[in-house]
């Protein structure tokens, strides 16, 4: 009996030692010498679409995924080609990227930095993704951007509005097409001053996290420059669902404008509470009380229903625009899915096209070559008019839309009307603007 035990133990021990012996020499050597991470070798190239499929921004995520599928279809020559027809660059021919068929993998960010990074890592390590894109939260965008910088792949940000993404957390491998809080402020403030006058007193309710803070800072600076006064700025917890206790003090604060720096479900709830309290019928300082929501999206407008009518905000893009690019995109998206795309879908579709185009122009999938092709790139025909990818911070500069909740919507998608298209010149800022200071792009990383 003891003899057999000894043998078994001996076998196991020998096995363990032998295993360690086999494994050790291989793990302590340098990685194989390739030009860059996940260089595509076969007849196809894999892109990683990392979007929130569960959690608070799942609606945005689902729409982003639809846009990505459409973009892949168009890149591979399927469908009606969408914005490829209107894009100012004609490098893409509908034959994939550099002749390689585009394939994709998807993942769930859960709107958590940790889960998003795990999902992006598995795309890079397991599926060999050459580019990661997507996301619907600035926290996630910053986290995944950092990961892509370390891993040596390109990150094309999805919906992220915080100044930090291309400000203090900017990275050489990361690119953002979406606009940011500063641009919202710069575009919105003149319209607000026109509509509501220059001697207003504003009260801010702000979602208590990085995006909320940068937006509050941007809106405050822009409105104060035009003569407004900020009475008070109150932070609300992100998980808050009932804002009554935050709305009540607004009435007696002496303010006559309420600015809601909230997004998604937060904004839907805070706006509904504010309307329930009758703020919009109130008079303060002899003026009508007004509510402003600096960052609007159609999905939010749908959630807020009636309450959104007449409220001013800004948005990156809206499907009712009448330029050729927008019309082509709305048409092919509508044909495929039966309803118009959201701004999240638009920015993700455009980002995919821009990446593919940059690879095609650079003639290589090497992240450094792609980054070089994107930096300082001027293009048109993608729905926002002439646009520049600035080399200093990898932020896109384009016109910003100021929108208002429609009084008489004709359909469940027709909720916002464009009040003004703020020209690009008015929302531009220096790359070393104090709201964006404190970070560095670093150098591009092609990986191992």
């Amino acid at each position, binding site marked *: 009996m003891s003899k057999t*035990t000894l043998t*078994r*133990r001996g076998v*196991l021990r020998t096995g*363990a030692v032998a*295993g*360690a012996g086999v*494994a050790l020499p*291989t*793990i*302590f*050597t*340098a*990685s*194989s010498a390739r030009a860059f991470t996940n260089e595509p070798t076969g007849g196809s190239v894999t892109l990683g679409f990392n979007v929130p*499929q*569960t959690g608070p921004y*799942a609606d945005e995520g689902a729409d982003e995924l639809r846009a990505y599928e459409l973009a892949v279809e168009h890149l591979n020559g399927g469908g009606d080609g969408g914005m490829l027809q209107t894009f100012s660059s004609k490098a893409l021919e509908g034959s994939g990227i550099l002749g390689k068929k585009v394939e*994709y*993998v*998807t*993942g*769930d960010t859960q709107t*958590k*930095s*940790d*889960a998003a*990074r*795990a*999902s992006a*890592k*598995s*795309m890079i*390590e*397991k*599926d060999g993704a050459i580019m990661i894109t997507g996301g619907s939260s*600035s*926290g996630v965008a*910053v*986290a995944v951007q*950092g*990961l892509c*910088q*370390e*891993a040596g792949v390109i990150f094309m940000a999805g919906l992220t509005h915080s100044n*930090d993404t291309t400000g203090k*957390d900017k990275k050489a491998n990361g690119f953002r097409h979406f606009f940011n809080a500063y641009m919202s402020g710069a575009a919105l403030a003149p319209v607000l001053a026109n509509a509501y006058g220059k001697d207003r007193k504003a009260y801010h309710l702000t979602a*208590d*996290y*990085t*995006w909320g803070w940068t937006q509050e800072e941007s809106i405050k600076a822009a409105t104060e420059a035009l003569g407004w006064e900020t009475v008070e700025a109150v*932070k609300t*917890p*992100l998980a808050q669902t009932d804002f009554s206790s935050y709305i009540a003090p607004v009435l007696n604060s002496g303010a006559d404008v309420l600015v809601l720096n909230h997004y998604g479900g937060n904004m839907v709830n805070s706006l509904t509470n504010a309307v329930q309290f009758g703020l919009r019928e109130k008079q303060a300082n002899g003026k009508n009380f007004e509510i402003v929501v600096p960052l609007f999206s159609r999905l939010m407008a749908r959630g807020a229903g009636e309450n959104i009518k007449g409220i001013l905000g800004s948005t990156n893009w809206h499907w009712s625009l009448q330029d050729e690019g927008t019309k082509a995109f709305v048409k092919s998206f509508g044909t495929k899915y039966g309803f118009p795309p959201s701004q999240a879908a638009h920015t993700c579709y455009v980002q995919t096209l821009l990446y593919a185009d940059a690879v095609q122009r650079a003639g290589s999938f090497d992240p450094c070559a792609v980054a070089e092709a994107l930096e300082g790139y001027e293009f048109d025909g993608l729905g926002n008019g002439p646009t520049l990818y600035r080399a200093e911070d990898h932020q896109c500069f384009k016109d910003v839309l100021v929108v208002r909740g429609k009084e008489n919507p004709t359909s469940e998608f027709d909720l916002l009307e464009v009040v003004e298209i703020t020209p690009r010149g008015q929302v531009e800022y220096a790359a070393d603007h104090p709201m964006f200071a404190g*970070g*560095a792009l*670093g*150098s591009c*990383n092609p990986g*191992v």
Partner: protein
Amino acid sequence: MFGLGKKDLTLFLIVAVMALFAPFILNPFPTDSGMAQFNAGYPDLMQRFVIFGILAIGFNILFGLTGYLSFGHAAFLGVGSYAAVWMFKLLSMNVIPAILLSMIVSGLFAVVIGYVSLRRSGIYFSILTLAFAQMSYNLAYSVLTPITNGETGLQITLDDPRILGVSATADGGIPVTNLFGLEMRSFETLNIGPWAFQFSVGYYVAAIIMLISFYVAIRIFRSPFGMMLRAIKSNQNRLYYTGLNARPYTLAAFVISGMYAGLAGGLLACMDPLAGAERMQWTASGEVVLMTILGGAGTLIGPVLGAGFIKYFENIFSKINDQVVHAWVSFLPDGLENFVVAIIHPFVGKGWHLTLGLMFMLIVIFLPGGLVEGGQRISRRLRRKPAEDDAKSASTEPAE
């Protein structure tokens, strides 16, 4: 050997062999086959398997032995991560100081939280720990932003001081976490025929630490101290009547368990230098409880299996999308294909929570002892031995 009994030694060696050969075991399908989707042998997921294994082992020391159900273990995980990332920012990119600091800080945290929470038992204890964890989460999310960088998460940057290292590498990049020069992220790919096996430095570092933790856990389970903890679980009043004060023992177990969680958090940060507040959220605490129950509470190997099970679902099932399902069933006629895809659709991709929930229900209902009990039943079937022998299978040691 190592002061372990025969059965424990066998178990330990099995775990060691499995950990060392994980890149092979977890990659059973050739890279270009359709089944490659189910391969789990890539560095990031393997690291998560062993790191959450450590977390679950630690949790089991508290829950499995004393029966105190902590619903706030994620707080220690988060604190450990923050401590480790701060060490990377301030001192050096070497993982050793980071891991040590994360254990120390989470240990101190555990002393404070445990001292207060352990005054109550049962559901009140669970609620107290949950409250502390949510407090930590909210503090990290907004109040302590200068320390935690709020929702964005604490990251290392190019302008960190790093006293014993460099702020930026020669070519302008952020330096990488390492163990005396061995980069955590570097890996070697071994191609055998159509298979590609990845051996990652980070994984082996984490795996060795997991084996050490596992060994310590076995020693605790078998020690007189472990016996005391079991006595607390079976009847605390009886202990008080015999003149023993149980609280120092429970506090010690709580602190050890918290340090395990801190170690796991520190390791997470070593593999990927980022610490986010959501690591402390109550859902994260709940996940640890799920892992332990799923694997088998009170058993040595159970929590590790449970951790692997949950992480596998989170990372593999969530990535199966309709396109992939279509490819699987493309041999069927069109109408039938779409029908099958529609059936499978709710359970994969964004529906991975649903699948996991169903599995959890099935296991809790039919295998109350968790995966370990499943293993025992199978081995009993296979061996067909009389009942008194198989009550203790080689791979498990029930706590009571």
